[in-house]
């Protein structure tokens, strides 16, 4: 089984294809940005991109991955953050931060598709991502700030 994650190809021969992608990333490949929160696609902490589409890696069997995987580590880095990450830093969204990898991946996928989202678009895209600390007001502000920055940068 071959899996491309953040531009690197990995061979995973000795793995059950039904193992969720999340656990293959975390425990087999040591990529721990995607988080385990619920295991049933209710919280969004495990969100990654497969061919640019936001998916819940806790519910995606590793054998069913259809394209290149991008995790939060592949989106940007502390030295070169993605515009969504830069907006998250500027707005100081994170409290405990545990959900934020998933929130950021979800927001990046929204903005790739909808460069100028309405509040309703943001509600629709982001309400599957749970934040127990209650950072929602800043999440909304950061999504809008990132959208502006990406439109101006484009």
């Amino acid at each position, binding site marked *: 089984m071959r899996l491309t994650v953040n531009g690197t190809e990995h061979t995973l021969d000795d793995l059950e294809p039904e193992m969720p992608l999340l656990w293959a990333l975390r425990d087999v490949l040591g990529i721990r940005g*995607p988080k*385990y929160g619920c*295991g049933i696609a209710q919280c969004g902490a495990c969100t990654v991109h497969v061919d640019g589409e936001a998916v819940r890696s806790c519910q995606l069997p590793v054998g069913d991955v259809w394209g290149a995987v991008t995790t939060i*580590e592949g989106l940007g*880095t502390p030295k070169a953050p993605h515009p969504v990450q830069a907006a998250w830093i500027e707005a*100081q969204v994170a*409290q*405990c931060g545990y959900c934020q990898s998933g929130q950021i991946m979800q927001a990046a996928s929204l903005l790739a598709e909808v460069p100028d989202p309405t509040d309703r678009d943001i509600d629709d895209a982001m309400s599957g991502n749970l*934040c127990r600390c*209650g950072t929602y007001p800043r999440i909304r502000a950061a999504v809008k700030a990132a959208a502006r920055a990406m439109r101006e940068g484009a």
Partner: protein
Amino acid sequence: MGRAKTIARRTFLVGSAAIAGGVAFGVWRHATPYANPLLRDLPEGAAALTPYVRITGEAITLITPRADVGQGAASVQAMLIAEELDVALDQVETEFGPPDRAYWNTALASEAVPFRATDRGWLAETARDVMGAPMKFLGMQITGGSTTVPDAWEKLRRAGAVARETLKETAARRRGVARDALDTGDGAVILPDGTRLSYQSLAAEAARTEPVTDVVLRDPAAWRLVGKPMRRMDIVAKSTGTQDYGIDEDQPGLLHAAIRLNPGHGAALRSYDAAEAEGMRGVERIVELPGGVGVIADNTWRAMQAAQAIACDWAPAPYPAEMDGHWQALADSFTPDRQDSRLRDAGDAEAALAGGADVEVEYRAPYLAHAPLEPLNATVRYTSERTDIWTGTQVPRFVQKNAASITGQDSGDVHVHVRVAGGSFGHRLEDTVVRHATRLAMAVPGRPVKLTYSREEDMGQEYPRQIAMARGRGRVAEGRVAACDLGIAMPSILGSQMGRQAIPTPGPDLQIVAGAWDQPFAIPDYRVTGYRAPELAPVSSWRSVGASTNGFFHDCLLDELIHAAGADPLEERLRLCSHAPSRAVLEAVGEMSGWGGPMGAGEGRGVAYCLSFGVPCAQVVEVRDTGEGLRVTRVYVAADVGRVVDPVNFEAQMQGGVVWGLGHAMHGQMTYAEGAAEQRNFDTFRAMRLNECPEIVVRGLETDDRIRGIGEPPVPPAAPALANAIFAATGQRLREMPFGRAVRFAG
């Protein structure tokens, strides 16, 4: 040893046995500083000038002993040290420090004495001071009770100043100049000619310099950091997936574990059959545990799969199997023999209500899960010589002590490495996960084992927020609230929690009435009685603790009485209140919300107030009936913490507290059926999501003369403000949480 134990018990009793007996010893002990724990493992050439500052050739490290569970504790503690130490925050690292008595929490004591936070009389202040001594004596290294900033406020600035002056003294001696001729800035001592000697270059010599302790803290006008917007030190890591949490712990040779515990929380495992699990791929070991069984495997998923495949025969839960039994136990607790406290008893409520009540109502609040997003986990490596534990915890000393009693080692041989936690809200005041992980690690000596609870186990093994019931009645006269009598029944949170740590909690449990008895209202006949219900499901501190239920009971009863009196909800609260900071927060939300201004059809505005953890907090909630359910549109919230140390994080904690309070009031409940929690994941345990989140406008006031924490106080007023707003919009009184049982919220 026997003698020391007696004294410890006696000094701890001080808080509830008033302020006699054992105090002198406690005070003596209080005045004797603990040894600096950083000196134990200090490398050659490094200096640890106080328990909070360590300087080596590689780094300046600030020790921030209160756990960071998302509330920004690490950053704010570092800020307070850095303010006096004269370092920039990007020059330093932070570390939570080892479990040690030196890191006691004195501020917790102020919540443990039976005086209102607004009472600044001699007796109240003396009791707080004296209670601080046994807190130190016991070395309560606890994060909780919104105490991090109050506890750190002087202590950490002083630690920074001692380190700074000692470094200056070192430089003064080296260069033969007077210490007061030197300046400091950005991690260096600055000589009169402008030459900079970095702290790190002075560290080895400073370690041999007698610390300069006669320091004067800077005038607020000179502050560089305190009170200014700061960038959280963890914000980049937490925005780029590079922050490691306890669940991300990796050690050479790491094994992974999962667990299966009796869903009847606390009951035994009668027998189990692990034949299928033993044959599953990756499984290394099946280990029987108290109340369950654990699986050690080569990755988490395989361990969880195998744990699910074990057939278990469980003993029945040690509490009522169905909710009816829990509610009945509360209803039966409003009796003289269960009376726990009556700390508020003004006028004569009994006589005032003898002729009947204008309002007579019952309120209910359910059990609630903490459910931080990072499930409970702990990594433990056991050898016969030492045990290492990596985990996110608010109680590192309890973790150490309890692990040591399991391994049979001395506490000093158990090394606790506190990790950043993905939320807590009180969840990590319990250490059961570490006890199980320790037993698992002992099955494979030398191999580190990371135990990760599945979400279902995490919620199934909750020590939830207390269930509670209140009965209120009152009278009105001439358009005013004249009499108010509130009785509250709940199991003792403190008793349940401290019972698991084998720490006695004599005297009344103030949390049974916190957020109700201590409210600064001058109602002529005014009584608040606490009733200690029998122990039901095991319960624990949940963000704002007793006030999370009692703020709802007290303020909604007041709102109903004000309505019965025909008075304005904001004006009557102000008329009854003479505590200036409390009046100020009420006036603030009135002004922010345009209280009294017109609302549209189907719209309503509700105000609520609660004083908790010494912080007065008021909220106005606005709701609109959309025809497809109620929508919370806007919240105005004001609180007075004496001084806003970081306005950015203050706003975050206020907004987060409102979301927490509203979301659970709307949707949250944990119920038991056949002895097991029915909500085991976020599909059934509903929380607020982004689409339901209102605009939340925050204001911080600084009129109070004492500094307070802000993690919890925004929570208690949220639920009553919402209930009062729904009443204003629809005429329907909601007396039982979650409100979603009775009304529909718009999605």
